[in-house]
């Protein structure tokens, strides 16, 4: 019955665990990089010192690090949009955002590996429920009668289910192929959105009603972060999990190694940027969101249905966190770990505050700046202290321009 020598609440079981390849995520002891595992160190020029042992900067690595920084920045940019909008519109500094990103990755993993047999069925079910949700959301404005809604649902649901079947049916063999990856990302996005909407309904909306202060929202979000992170550990264990994908050889472009996953991340960022831009500038919902970020009360009296738009913010946030989570695992050599989310939190906040709270474009720009700053700073201060660069950027912004580059305005 003697107590354990360190009688501390030890929920964080993975204390000394090392994430292979995740060197930028969590500063760990220097590990010799596996060949082809992590492009930054996959094929360093001959004679380059192991990272962290010698602090002599080798400037020939700079182009590679710039690209790596861009890739990390694209993850931060995609994830940061949601954080920035939630921060700006709901006045909620969501300390659980990093954990939500990794939740997206783990949901994708869940469908890609343990549930891969049931992928078609779950795809169909999710397709149907997605359609139901979309229709219901559209109907919210149109004030249709119940009968009309039911008819619309009955017509639309089988169509989407069929579509999901068609998409899912194309996969052959085992392993997480590109197609499967797209499907599981969609599934993960749907479930992330569902989780965020449930959280909004159960916690954030009652707290908004009570006009809870910023402080209390921050503390509640810490609780959410604890629940999500430990819940993921319960479900998936404390070890590394990875998609069932072969390690591809990174192609070389102008002397810089860019893996397919990194290319995908960069392309995805461009697509997301365009989509978010069009959404915010062209659609009614997007305009309402920008109006709410500017001035919530003004938007409310101008006829914006605030509760509905808040739901839309969460939907956008869930879609983007799921996407960024999957991309994060992909560029990390398909490996994901529960603690990666929390490690993402500081860079995320740095990029959002740098870009100006509430500004999605600012968050994207800030994400790239912070990503590149972290990667290139690693050249001088060692890859294990990259997060220091994010902290320094954050402190510098807070001291010099606390309203951020974009001045806290949307667009």
């Amino acid at each position, binding site marked *: 019955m003697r107590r354990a020598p360190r009688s501390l609440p030890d929920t964080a079981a993975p204390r000394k665990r090392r994430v292979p390849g995740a060197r930028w995520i969590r500063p760990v002891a220097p590990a010799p990089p596996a060949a082809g595992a992590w492009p930054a160190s996959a094929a360093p020029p001959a004679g380059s010192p192991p990272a962290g042992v010698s602090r002599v900067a080798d400037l020939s690595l700079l182009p590679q690090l710039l690209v790596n920084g861009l890739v990390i920045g694209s993850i931060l940019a995609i994830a940061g949009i949601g954080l920035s909008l939630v921060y700006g519109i709901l006045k909620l500094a969501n300390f659980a955002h990093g954990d939500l990103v990794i939740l997206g990755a783990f949901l994708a993993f869940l469908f890609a590996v343990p549930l891969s047999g049931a992928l078609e069925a779950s795809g169909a079910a999710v397709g149907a429920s997605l359609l139901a949700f979309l229709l219901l959301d559209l109907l919210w404005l149109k004030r249709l009668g119940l009968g009309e809604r039911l008819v619309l649902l009955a017509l639309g649901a089988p169509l989407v289910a069929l579509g999901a079947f068609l998409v899912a049916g194309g996969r052959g063999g085992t392993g997480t192929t590109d197609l499967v990856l797209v499907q599981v990302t969609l599934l993960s996005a749907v479930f992330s959105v569902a989780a965020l909407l449930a959280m909004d309904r159960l916690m954030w909306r009652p707290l908004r009603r009570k006009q809870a202060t910023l402080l209390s929202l921050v503390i509640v979000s810490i609780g959410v972060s604890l629940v999500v992170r*430990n819940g993921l550990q319960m479900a998936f264990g404390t070890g590394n999990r990875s998609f069932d994908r072969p390690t591809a050889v990174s192609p070389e472009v102008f002397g810089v190694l860019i893996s397919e996953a990194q290319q995908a991340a960069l392309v995805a960022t461009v697509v997301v940027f365009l989509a978010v831009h069009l959404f915010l500038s062209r659609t009614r919902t997007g305009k309402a969101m920008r109006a709410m970020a500017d001035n919530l009360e003004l938007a409310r009296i101008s006829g914006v249905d605030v509760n509905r738009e808040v739901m839309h913010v969460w939907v956008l946030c869930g879609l983007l966190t799921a996407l960024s989570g999957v991309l994060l695992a992909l560029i990390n050599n398909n490996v994901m770990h529960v603690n990666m989310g929390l490690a993402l939190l500081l860079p995320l906040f740095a990029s959002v505050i740098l870009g100006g709270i509430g500004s999605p474009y600012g968050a994207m720009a800030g994400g790239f700046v912070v990503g590149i700053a972290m990667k290139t700073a690693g050249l001088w201060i060692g890859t294990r202290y990259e997060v220091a660069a994010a902290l320094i950027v954050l402190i510098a912004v807070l001291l010099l321009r606390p309203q951020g580059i974009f001045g806290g305005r949307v667009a």
Partner: protein
Amino acid sequence: MRPPDAAGPRLLAAGRSIASGAAALLRWPLRLFEGREGREWRTVVLTLLIVFALMAALGSVGAVSTGVVVNFLVGLAITACIFSLLALGLQVQFGHGGILNFGLIAFAGLAAYVMGILWRHAGRGLADAIAADAALQAAVLAVVAAAAAVFAAPVAGLAVERFRPRAPTRLKRLAVLAAAGAAAASAVSLFLPLGVTQSRDAVILLGILLGIGAAVGLAFVFAMPAIRLREDYLAIVTLGAAELLEAFYRNEIWLTGGTEGILNLHNPITERALSNDAWQGFVDALDPNLRAVPLAQLLIAFLLVLYFFLLFEALIRSPWGRVLRAIREDDTVASAMGKDVNRFRLQALVLGGIAIAVAGILIALRTSTIFPGTYERQLTFSTWVALVVGGVANNKGVFAGAAIVLVALPELARNLRVLEEFGLQNIVGPGQGVAAGLILILFMMYRPHGLVGRKEELLFGR
């Protein structure tokens, strides 16, 4: 007119007054539980009793003897004291100062590591040098005396103000000086003669002082960029800085030993408890099952918690505390009244940081080891949960909160570990975190003032 034999009534009156005095003395513990403060104390004491009864029941399941249970409870009591001190520091910083410190573990870790690094790299050599050199001995004794005097002076001042508030100021000063001098003298006598063992104790004491100094420095570093900004920014900066320090402990193996940690710290508490015959005899007389070292740890941890609790209670009731709370409520108003908002906040950060640093040092001295995993963000979050459960803006709350969240919850989880034999790996450990998170969320939503917090001083969740 008086009857010649007045002895009877006089005796009667004397007896009556003695009886009423005795009755008052007997009622005095009950009087403690009257009124608002009393009700709060009642909740805290009741919580502690329930937690420790539960733990005693848990500990006695399958225990071979009562001695095992008693020692187990002593261990839990040490944990409770240390973590209460941790939460007390956070209470001053957040509950009264309104500073959202998510890097509180950095104060504890930094202090412990400064002490450990001093011992690891210079300890034995420095101790030998002190034992050999008279000049160094004088310097060390001077430091010991000064530290003891600084430590004792506030309590002496509090006692004087409490019991002789109307005394002339010169007398008060004299009393405080005398108390400080007495403390310094007794501390110096503890280290005399300055042999090898005492020199090692002195090195550890030096490390503790340096560690507390480092924590104060950290408070200044935290305060520099962010204290004049919004609370959420400070939260992010402190969280990031704590992460960075944690990475430092893990990676700078040449300095901190990395994940292996710092082992075999010289431990004055253990050494003196084992070598002091009077203490051994006292412990044996108390209960033959008790062991000398844990009881000494408990005594020291308890005295330190008591010290900081009394100090902070007095400070919070002082004009300084009222200004601090005014700043927490509305810093614009406070600064319009001519108060230097940033200075008060910095002082709250420093004072709370000292308490947290002492708690971190106690954690290290408990096992004479320092591991990076001990000083991790998990402990920060657990302490926050304990603070919210106990009640924000009320110093008493930390005892109840720490007992529930930092003692009972981990102990329950440890007892549920048997479930892992039935194929439920990864359930119990993370389950503890999930439970802590849910407790935090539910308390924030439905009882934001916690067990004994004050609704009218609530910072959030109206």
